[in-house]
């Protein structure tokens, strides 16, 4: 550990510790999830980056969405995302969450994930290689360092817009709003 790093640790321990201990919640949708077990186990060993899988959204701070998102899955994704403690980061894995991918004209998959929850980074590919997860993680480190991974802040600030989009596609939501909704007479 060089002196630069130590001074960083002393100056902003929240950022540094958040960087090096990303606990990931893998949302097992679609084909991208097949790429994830090799990443966690002996072949590509994600634990050396501090990335470990956790079983519940309460403990996680990295949300990996691996594959296409159907309307029914979106409901579960939103509920899991709102249970995660802040600061939290979302990475869309594969081309399906970006713009629908090969399901661009399907009647039942939502096309753009970032219309419903904020996404900090994308991994393109159909499906991407396991190494791409490490590229995403190291890129996320840079984003956290520069203070650009602020998806959760955006979610808090524009919650009514997100909630309106979610209600448009899902109908009525059976859970109460996470943040108070400002009624600006619209």
């Amino acid at each position: 550990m060089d002196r630069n790093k130590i001074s960083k640790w002393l100056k902003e321990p929240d950022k540094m510790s958040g960087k090096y201990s990303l606990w990931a919640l893998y949302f097992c949708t679609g084909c991208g999830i097949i790429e994830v077990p090799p990443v966690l186990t002996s072949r590509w060993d994600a634990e050396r980056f501090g990335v470990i899988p956790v079983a519940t959204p309460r403990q996680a701070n990295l949300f990996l969405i691996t594959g296409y998102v159907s309307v029914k899955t979106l409901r579960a994704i939103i509920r899991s995302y709102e249970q995660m403690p802040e600061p939290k980061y979302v990475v869309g894995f594969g081309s399906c969450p970006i713009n629908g991918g090969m399901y661009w004209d399907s009647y039942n998959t939502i096309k753009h994930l970032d219309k419903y929850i904020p996404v900090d980074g994308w991994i393109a590919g159909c499906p991407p290689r396991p190494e791409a997860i490490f590229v995403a993680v190291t890129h996320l480190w840079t984003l956290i360092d520069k203070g650009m991974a602020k998806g959760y802040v955006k979610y808090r600030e524009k919650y009514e817009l997100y909630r309106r989009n979610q209600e448009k596609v899902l109908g009525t939501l059976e859970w109460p709003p996470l943040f108070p909704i400002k009624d600006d007479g619209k």
Partner: protein
Amino acid sequence: MAKKEEILNVLKSFRDKGYDHLEMVSCVDRIKENKFEIVYILSSYGENETVILKTAISRENPQIPSAIPVFENAEPYERELHELFGIDFEGHPRLTPLLLERKYKIPPFRKDFDTRKYVKEVFDEIPFIEDKK
């Protein structure tokens, strides 16, 4: 091919002959002939053979007796067909939604359901959330 009214008897006779495993109930939308084709796939463990039974019903009035009295495991397949093709299975105990979350005017697996128009109307209408500049 079997007639719609006869389907239960035909299924029963096949079951008694040893084709006692219903693998699948499926449907084909023959839009030019204005018909739905319901496909029953039966197989036999003893003979190691597969039998495919087909029956046609009209598109305007898609009704067919449920196969549950003969094969109990037809229940989820028929629910799925009811949801995706809008076929009414008479005598089915619960034709509730199984897979889909949204309501569709035309069941989405019918040939006259225009997916691209639907996508354009529903999913593309939802606005992006822009960053403040």
